[in-house]
């Protein structure tokens, strides 16, 4: 049974359509990325799936329960980290985590232990007495993510959970999530940071103007929509301008740039031919290759290509 099944999901606010016939499936134990520009309908979709708002049309089941008819059974089994920081204004970090466990009816000894484990895991021990009102945005975000692990769940919704986190905190948060997934958790994840999606997600859906424009693994998404690859060659000596000229005439090459310091960047659909030519010509002209890189298309390229062409 899938963790999430969505068919023809639609949400209208008056004349504005926030979600327009979205359909997808998330397998259990999967990290599913839901990517899209601002206003694409990501948060609205999460709000429908977490039973916070009703859909205007369509069907959605979460962990086998209909979100419209069986909301309580959905909510008992999910965790949600909202895009907007949420916390108890007057309480210290440890106390509010403990209280959140109580709200979720976690037995006292278990929640005491979990507070300590999570404070360690998220690097919050030294801040444990600091109140929400005294915390930086990054710390608030860390507390918010850590707090959600106070209770058991089968499915975790993360709505841009790493906004405001420094790179180290971001990486440790993503690794923590990965660790939980290896224990059986399913994750529905939205982000603007495509490196994160690539690092974390088994599959991603790209959503734009309320519609899903593509669903695939990050690797296949890059292959299908990422477009051209980049060959980078750092060349010393010889006649680099001749090399650039020859590369521009090669089949499949769409752009060649020569930067200061002898770095040549070739954007091509045929990287093996470009690499071969660079090797041959540098040998002929007496130049020396210092560094040679082949850069795969990024998920960001695929994202930009999909979002801009479908607009």
């Amino acid at each position, binding site marked *: 049974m899938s963790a999430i099944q969505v068919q023809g999901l639609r*949400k209208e*606010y008056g004349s*504005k359509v*926030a979600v327009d016939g979205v359909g997808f499936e998330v397998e259990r134990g999967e990290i599913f990325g839901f990517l899209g520009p*601002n*206003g*694409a*309908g*990501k*948060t*609205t979709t999460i*709000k429908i799936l*977490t*039973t*916070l*708002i*009703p859909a205007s049309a369509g069907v959605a089941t979460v962990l086998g329960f209909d979100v419209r008819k069986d909301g*309580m059974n959905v*909510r*008992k089994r*999910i965790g*949600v980290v*909202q*895009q*907007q*920081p*949420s*916390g*108890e*204004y*007057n*309480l210290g970090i440890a*106390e*509010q985590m403990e*209280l959140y466990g*109580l*709200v*979720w*009816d976690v037995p006292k000894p278990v929640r005491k232990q979990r507070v300590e484990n999570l404070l360690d895991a998220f690097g919050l021990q030294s801040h444990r007495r600091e109140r*929400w009102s005294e915390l930086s945005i990054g710390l608030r975000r860390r507390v918010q993510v850590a707090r959600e692990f106070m209770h058991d769940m089968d499915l975790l919704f993360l709505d841009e959970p790493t906004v405001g986190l420094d790179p180290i905190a971001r990486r440790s948060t993503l690794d923590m999530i990965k660790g939980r997934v290896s224990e059986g958790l399913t994750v529905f994840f*939205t982000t603007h940071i495509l490196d994160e999606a690539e690092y974390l997600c088994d599959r991603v859906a790209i959503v734009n103007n309320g519609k899903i424009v593509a669903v695939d693994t990050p690797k296949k998404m890059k292959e299908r929509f990422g477009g051209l690859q980049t060959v980078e060659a750092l060349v010393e000596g010889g006649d680099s301008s001749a090399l650039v000229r020859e590369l521009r005439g090669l089949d499949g090459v769409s752009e060649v740039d020569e930067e200061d310091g002898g770095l040549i960047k070739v954007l091509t659909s045929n990287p093996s031919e470009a690499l071969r030519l660079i090797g041959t010509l540098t040998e002929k002209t007496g130049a020396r290759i210092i560094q040679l890189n082949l850069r795969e298309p990024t998920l960001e390229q695929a994202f930009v290509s999909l979002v801009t062409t479908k607009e």
Partner: protein
Amino acid sequence: MFPILRLLIRDVRATFDKSLLVLQLVLPLLYLFVAGFSYTNLIAPLQVNGRAISYQQFLAAGVVLQTVMTGSLFAGLLLWVDKRLAMFEQILMGPFTRSQYAFSKILSSMVIGLGGAVIIVGFAVPFFVGITPSLVGVLIGFAAVFLAALFFGSFAVALSSFLKSTESFNVAINLLFVVFTFVSSSFYPVSAAPPLLQGFLLFNPLTHADDLLRLGMYGLAPPSSCMRVSRWCLRLFLLSDLRCSPSEESKSKANG
């Protein structure tokens, strides 16, 4: 543990600002001891059932209910704080129904309002010397306090669902406090007000709660207060439950 009880504990531990308790008590005590002592010398005792009731005794009942009102109003408005800190949606995405959430907020406001009232009653004991209400009177008095807490808690929860900004929250708090306090029979009997004002006083549930408490304590006859306050409570309770639906709330936030 019951979901509502868990939410109640959360409200008392997290959302409720302890300084509110002090604020909740300072003003009623000022009324009781400063206004009470001063005006007693100016206002003749009321004759009730052949017994004289001093102004201080009249005021004491009003002050107890004013404490209930202040505590319940402030606590009920904590729903607005939940919305501001995004805990409203966080809780509703947890293992609770919106009715449980709304009811827990009303219950929290009642607990806080009634807690304040108990303390004020303690201070007001000297004013009740010589007053021996019957068991029925005590029950009527308790009903007045309970209904007032229920009404103001429900009212504040319903109102919170409409508030959008800190400014509107501040204006609402100040305006409501003054209007409910002074356009009521807390400080003077309805019959002492000009005829036009009497209509407004009778529209205020605090007036009926005041009268009900005085009925219980001193045997003063109220104008069918219990039913009026109960009806208001029911309306407000249903409205607050309805207004805790997150769908309305989320419309304006549907930006992604």
